[in-house]
């Protein structure tokens, strides 16, 4: 996926109330989104995201105690090759400046992205979120899943990088030893923050009016029994990832095998050397110089572990989604059985 890295802008005004000691624990315990933001994200994907990769945008809001309030958002244009001189930072700056004129919160608090069947754990996302979280402590990435939403219920999740992962990204130490030191598993990469939707009273009035005016028949997609299409696609993606994973594992195995072979060779060489030296001593000749063994046997390059971690995280995500989906469908099937039994 060719998502480009978004450069965060330094906040133009200090955050509302960040306590200095809030960096130890996660500073954000809950996210409060306004209905407007949800509607804007849905619309953005619907209009611009069909068939293409992902749509992205910026979230604006405030931090209040331990809650992150997201009050507005604006979309980012698609990254097109023929728009080479398009300056993303400039677009962002102009947009935020203009929004300030109409009293919209202009503090950058994160970004949002749409996803295809839940596949968003990638290097690009990690990098973007790291740069955001580095510049702005409380930022989150909102993942909006349009396909799941179309099946009947809004699917919106908020993620942050765990502090452990932040440390690792800071030092750029992605080797096996580094990760082992920090004891990071794929479950500790992202932490999910619970979301709450809040609407002001005026918007609530608007909702009442809409319900009254608009007698659109409820379509009940949620009770749809068909599952094979969705399952097929999810399983396909899962299989691809598992293939990647197995390739990585093979690489790691060859590496460890090479390493142990090399260790053996080193030992043998040293032993032979010692034997020869002992023989020479008995014959009274000068012993051969000790050679630098490490230079002769260059240790093989350990494979990078970060990608494996990302793939594992992605697989985990797919599995979670699939399980959620199957549990819903099982419920629906049993309901259908009850109805049919009632009829016949």
């Amino acid at each position, binding site marked *: 996926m060719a998502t480009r890295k978004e450069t965060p802008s330094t906040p133009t005004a200090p955050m509302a109330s960040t306590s200095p000691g809030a960096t130890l624990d996660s500073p954000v315990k809950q996210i*409060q989104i*306004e*209905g*407007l933001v*949800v*509607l804007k994200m*849905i*619309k953005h994907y*619907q209009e*611009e995201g069909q068939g293409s990769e992902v749509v992205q945008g910026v979230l604006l809001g405030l931090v209040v105690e331990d809650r992150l309030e997201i*009050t507005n958002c*604006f979309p980012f244009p698609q990254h097109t090759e023929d728009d080479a001189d398009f300056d993303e930072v400039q*677009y962002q700056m102009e*947009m935020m400046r203009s929004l300030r*004129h*109409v*009293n919209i919160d202009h503090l950058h608090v994160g970004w949002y992205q749409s996803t295809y069947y839940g596949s968003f754990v990638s290097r690009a996302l990690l990098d973007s979120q790291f740069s955001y979280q580095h510049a702005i402590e409380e930022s989150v990435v909102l993942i909006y899943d349009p396909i799941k*939403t*179309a099946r009947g*219920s*809004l699917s919106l999740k908020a993620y942050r990088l765990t502090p452990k992962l932040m440390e690792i990204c800071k030092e750029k130490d992605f080797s096996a030893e580094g990760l082992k030191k920090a*004891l990071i*598993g*794929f479950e500790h990469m992202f932490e999910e923050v*619970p*979301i709450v*939707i809040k609407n*002001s*009273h*005026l*918007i*609530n*009035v*608007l909702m009442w009016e*809409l319900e009254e005016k608009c007698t*659109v028949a409820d379509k*009940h*997609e*949620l*009770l749809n029994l068909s*599952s*094979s299409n969705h*399952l097929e696609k999810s*399983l396909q993606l*899962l299989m691809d990832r598992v293939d990647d994973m197995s390739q990585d*594992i093979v690489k790691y195995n060859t590496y460890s095998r090479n390493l142990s072979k090399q260790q053996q060779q080193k030992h043998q060489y040293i032993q032979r050397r010692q034997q020869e030296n002992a023989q020479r001593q008995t014959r009274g000749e000068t012993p051969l110089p000790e050679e630098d063994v490490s230079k002769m046997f260059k240790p093989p390059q350990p494979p990078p572990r970060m990608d*494996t971690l990302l793939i*594992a995280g992605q697989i*985990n995500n*797919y*599995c979670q989604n699939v399980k959620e989906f*199957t*549990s*819903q469908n*099982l*419920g*629906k*099937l049993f309901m*259908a059985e009850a109805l049919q039994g009632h*009829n016949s």
Partner: protein
Amino acid sequence: MVAVRPLGIDSEASSDPLQIKLYELPAAAQMSVYGPVVKIHPVVLASIGDSYERRNEGASRVIGTLLGTIDKHSVEVTNCFSVPHNESEDEVAVDMEFAKNMYDLHKRVSPSEVIVGWYATGFEITEHSVLIHEYYSREATNPIHLTMDTALQSGKMNIRAYVSAQMGVPGKTVGVMFTPLSVKYKYYDTERIGVDLLQRTRDAPNTTNGLTSDLCQVGGAAGRVQDMLATVLTYIEDVLSGKQMADNSVGRYLMDLVNKVPKITAEDFETMLNSNINDLLMVTYLSNLTQAQIALNEKIVVL
């Protein structure tokens, strides 16, 4: 002499001198009187409400630009942004530069959206609106003017749309009249699901609501269907006991409903159900297996 028939008398319209009653005219003149149908997306209304809440001190209303697409018979409003303006007794100043800038920025994201009109909060159409409308007629052909009464003067929000038309005696001063248009609400599927979720905040005490988890949602949807069935059942019982007059069209719908339940033999249904359940269980098992596998892999590598 052309026969005219009043189409509908708006009780509020008679008090507002700027509105006219709609009359059915012969087909030739119809298009020019009616104007296009305005389809609004809920995101526009939420945006307008939000910018009204954030208005400057002392401003009684906010205005902004409407973006959307124009069709042959309808105008679809899909986006909007507010424009800062100052209004006093005798003059009005709108930041045109800002409006143009914002429109350019928005065009970068969705190149297919064009300016289709403008909106204002408030109940009445003032003289200033005429001036602003003139400005917008330069930007778009036949702009739509949308009003939304956020102060709830008449107890409702009164979302209305207008098009301007020239009126007056030819040769003398020409005035402008705002003729109302019919407003419809259009939703994308996903938008409707989003709005459904948002509507649940109405009942919560401090207007907040969390997102529910998987099986709860299915339960909720089933509950809703059950409610609807209960309503239908009470209606049928009323008709049977004579409390209500039977309506033929409703009866036909009910026939359709009952016939929609597919007639499947018990064995066929059993096989279908079992195969589906087997598929789902197998997938659950596989995903659990995969998760166990990657967890194991991680532990081994760390050794």
